[in-house]
């Protein structure tokens, strides 16, 4: 946690930036504050449609850890799917279980393929907590959402679901239905070769080819 003045100054510098170089420097300084109060401004920066800048803001959000997740969840931008994709990536990398509902909903229904892609990534990485029954039911929910996502119209979302299914299935029981979804992605039903390659790699690593 930084002093109020350092934080306020960093936020003011972001607002005052006139060039992309200034904005990058100011955002880097804001990230260095490592302060939960920087989240709204980092989420604003993430929506500027500048990948290099968004990458810096993303690393700042992720570094703040699980405590940042509720604020990010509250502030997902319904109007800007580019920004939403970055925010969902942050949630995916923070991997706190509180994001599960949002990630399931995003994978199933978000209009932005990059949002669905990031949500699928998140569902493979969440740290599940609770007693064994709770963990199992959360895992089932992730598996179900990812299996469903294997039918997405965008190849990159199907790819992301395959990668996450591999990750989830490598810990815990190898669910027959999820394995079946991966097998289907290696077959001729899947018209995109890189998805077939990824699904085959997953099955190979799971010894389930």
């Amino acid at each position: 946690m930084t002093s109020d003045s350092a934080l306020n100054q960093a936020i003011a510098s972001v607002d005052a930036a006139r060039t992309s170089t200034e904005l990058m420097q100011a955002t880097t300084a804001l990230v260095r504050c490592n302060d939960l109060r920087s989240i709204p401004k980092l989420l604003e920066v993430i929506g500027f449609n500048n990948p290099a800048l968004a990458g810096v803001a993303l690393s700042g959000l992720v570094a703040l850890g699980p405590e940042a997740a509720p604020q990010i969840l509250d502030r997902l931008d319904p109007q800007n799917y580019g920004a939403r994709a970055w925010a969902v990536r942050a949630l995916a990398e923070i991997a706190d279980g509180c994001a599960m509902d949002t990630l399931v909903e995003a994978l199933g229904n978000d209009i932005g393929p990059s949002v669905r892609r990031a949500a699928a990534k998140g569902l493979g990485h969440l740290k599940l907590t609770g007693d064994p029954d709770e963990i199992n039911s959360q895992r089932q929910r992730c598996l179900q959402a990812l299996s469903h996502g294997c039918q997405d119209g965008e190849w990159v979302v199907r790819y992301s679901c395959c990668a996450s299914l591999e990750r989830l299935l490598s810990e815990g029981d190898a669910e027959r239905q999820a394995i079946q979804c991966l097998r289907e992605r290696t077959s001729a039903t899947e018209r995109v070769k890189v998805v077939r390659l990824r699904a085959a790699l997953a099955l190979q690593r799971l010894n389930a080819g």
Partner: protein
Amino acid sequence: MAMQPGADATQSGAGDPIDEPEALRRLEQRDDPADRYYAAWWLGHERSQHPRTLPLLRAALQELLSAGGQPEEDCRALSLNVLRAMVHLDAGAAKEEILSCLAHHDSHIREEATRTAASEGFRESVALICSQLSADDASDDRLIEAQIEALGDLGDAGAAVIDTLVRFSDDPRTLIRSATLRALLQLTEDPHWAREFPSLLQSSSTLVRRGVLLDLGAVGWMPALDWISQSPIENSIKLIALRGLAEHPRGLEPLSLNTEQANQMVLAAMDQLL
């Protein structure tokens, strides 16, 4: 590679969800040009294999070709969508119409026909494309880019093709230079033609950086794996480029990699970008 307009559903035509019979009906009718336009796009997007699809699409091109010098705008727009749709279909039976469009006086029609001919692998078009590229009025950037990309995709590495391409290898227009290097790499796999890509990827223009990245993906140039992964571009474009490296890797020999090793490296890089 320039970003193509009309590449997704939201831009290509509004309307309620339709099914294949409805798309065929809309393409066949003559009352509503917008319906025909949408139907042509739909059939391509859905990879329609219905036996009536290709004959109806061919008929639309024949209308254009028989319209002579001044086709109606509706007819021209429909033909452009038909040519784009054929990229997604097995349109070998439409070879005659596609090759005729390649010589059409409208440069936009020529451009789309060039892409379609390349995707269908019509090597008959190579000589015509080379002669068009050698013509003096080579000033339509998008057309030139499409023609150069087609030469790379068609896989004819004869001296005439290489000579034509080399003339564009130091073109001042960045995207045309990138397309040329892409085609030369596809045809020769000579790393010499890859040397300029790292500096092209540092272009100050986002549009150029995206185009260059997609060119590297179209080649499947494995030595570019790290350049692609680390370039300051949104992950969606990097993933499209890396897909090319996974699906048709080139340039493995200098890296001493076999295809399986290359695949694993590319998939690992893609996993990091999801």
